[in-house]
């Protein structure tokens, strides 16, 4: 008689195969989520550094009180937008974009204050802030990388047969909208 275990074995192999694909999709989706939280971490880092920057330059940049006030306000708005749970919404993108533009303005304006430029405190802050800007950019980039491989994995055959519960994720392209409304920094 034909042994019963052959179809059983095939069935078991099919189940294991399905589990592997499913877990791969879950892992891929988690990478997307991690990528997202990494952006938040870096935005938070930016918000935390700004009061230090304003404090450090206030004494030197006597003619830029208005600019510094703008920075403080933009930071407040960005923090508010982030805590409002509207992450990724255009509100956050716009607030962060404005903040980024104002920060570059501060560093350009700092050129007119030789004492400030010579202060080690300011130089250290400058490095920290520009690194934070880089980190935000790289975190976005990594997020999009994760989204790309997640979407590919989700859509490719045979994964798509069991990827019903895995929704498509959009790339983060807020920067384009923000870029347009940014004040141009001209020197």
């Amino acid at each position, binding site marked *: 008689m034909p042994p019963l275990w052959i179809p059983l074995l095939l069935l078991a192999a099919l189940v294991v195969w399905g589990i592997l694909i499913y877990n791969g999709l879950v892992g891929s989706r988690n990478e997307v989520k991690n990528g997202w939280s990494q952006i938040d971490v870096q935005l938070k880092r930016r918000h935390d550094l700004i009061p230090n920057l304003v404090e450090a330059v206030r004494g030197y940049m006597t003619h830029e009180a208005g600019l510094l006030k703008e920075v403080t306000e933009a930071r407040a708005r960005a923090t508010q937008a982030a805590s409002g749970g509207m992450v990724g919404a255009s509100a956050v993108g716009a607030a962060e974009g404005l903040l980024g533009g104002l920060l570059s303005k501060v560093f*350009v304006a700092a050129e007119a204050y030789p004492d400030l430029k010579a202060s080690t405190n300011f130089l250290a802050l400058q490095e*920290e802030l520009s690194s934070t800007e880089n980190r*935000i*950019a790289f975190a976005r*980039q990594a997020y*999009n990388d994760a989204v*790309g491989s997640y979407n590919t994995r989700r*859509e490719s055959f045979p994964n798509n047969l069991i990827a019903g519960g895995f929704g498509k994720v959009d790339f983060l392209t807020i920067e384009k909208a923000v870029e347009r409304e940014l004040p141009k920094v001209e020197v």
Partner: protein
Amino acid sequence: MWEQIRSNRIRSAFVVTGMALLLGAVGASLGAMFGGVGGMAIGVGVALVLWLILWTTTVANGDDVFLRMSKAQQIESKDHPVLWNVVEEMSIAAALPKMPRVYVVEDPAPNAFATGRNPDKAAVAVTTGLLGMLDRDELQGVVAHEIGHIKNRDVALIVTAGVMVGAVALLGDVGRRALFYGGMSRSRSSNRNGGGGAIIAVVSILVLILAPIFAQLMYFALSRRREFLADASGARFSRYPEGLARALEKISGQRVPQRDQSRVTAPMYIVSPVHPGAMAARGQGSSMFSTHPSVEQRVRVLRSMAGGAGVADYLRAYSQVTGRQLLHSVPEDAGLAARAAAVGAAGFVDAPRARARAASDALLTSGGWQILDCGNCGARVKLPPPLAGVVRRCPRCEAPLGG
């Protein structure tokens, strides 16, 4: 795109398997020399046990062997903020589970290496010579290359393969010595086994002489391939191939001999620490016996990426420059192509970086620097105040600079 690099890992696994076969063959030959046909199995066993012992001691001593060998000092954020930040930025870009530990090696020769069996235990080390020589973009390129090694899990591969080469060399050496000092056992075994024994003896001798060479060639080829792939990953992480290209040029222009010149640790470094003089003789800086491709070729590939920064762009540039293919299994990755196009069109990835670069150039200009774009090769030349207006030709392509 990581799927492509992973699929190349399967290829690498074949190389390692090939080396294991060579190791087995050497063991068998050695066994045959001492004990005839019956000794072959024992020889194979001895070879595998030797490899296992070497491998476990290497792994047990952990990932810190290289760090200790090169006397690297672990640093904190406050010790070197720029280096620390660059490493953290690149681990964010690579989405590593954890930022690697950061080390500095007191050595005037510019170089860098990564170590760690898996991304959780990784470390990046750079020499003081490197830190003194590179600007931030260049340092970022170097660190991105090292993070590429970590992300591609090259260290485990290189260590496994390296230990195998070591075992083959050791056994081959034992065999050659035995041949030299005591042909006795060989002649005894051939007497016992007749003509078949003589054939086995000849084959054994050939294997003992050739296997170590083959193992090394395979090892070097593996190492060079992983080097190119780390460049590709580095370009992708930093989205700025030019940074790595400039760094490689600067590093290879140096003739400071490096302290650690062992061939075992060589594949770990960004440029080969062995024979810096020969290395610096670019053009023919690489051969079958090099752990690294020539710097000149690496730079050319990086500069041929035509504004792209993806692995696909790198692969295209690679085949354009070398006429060969780096990855044979490049699938029609529609997702990746679309993503690269979408990223470029939206400009969201490069915009902040370009803005940062524009701002830093603006800062330099107001500090008396002169910034000129070469119309011929596209290089951006930044001249400090003493040289502003003095340098009139592009340092890279010698074309006259406009402006």
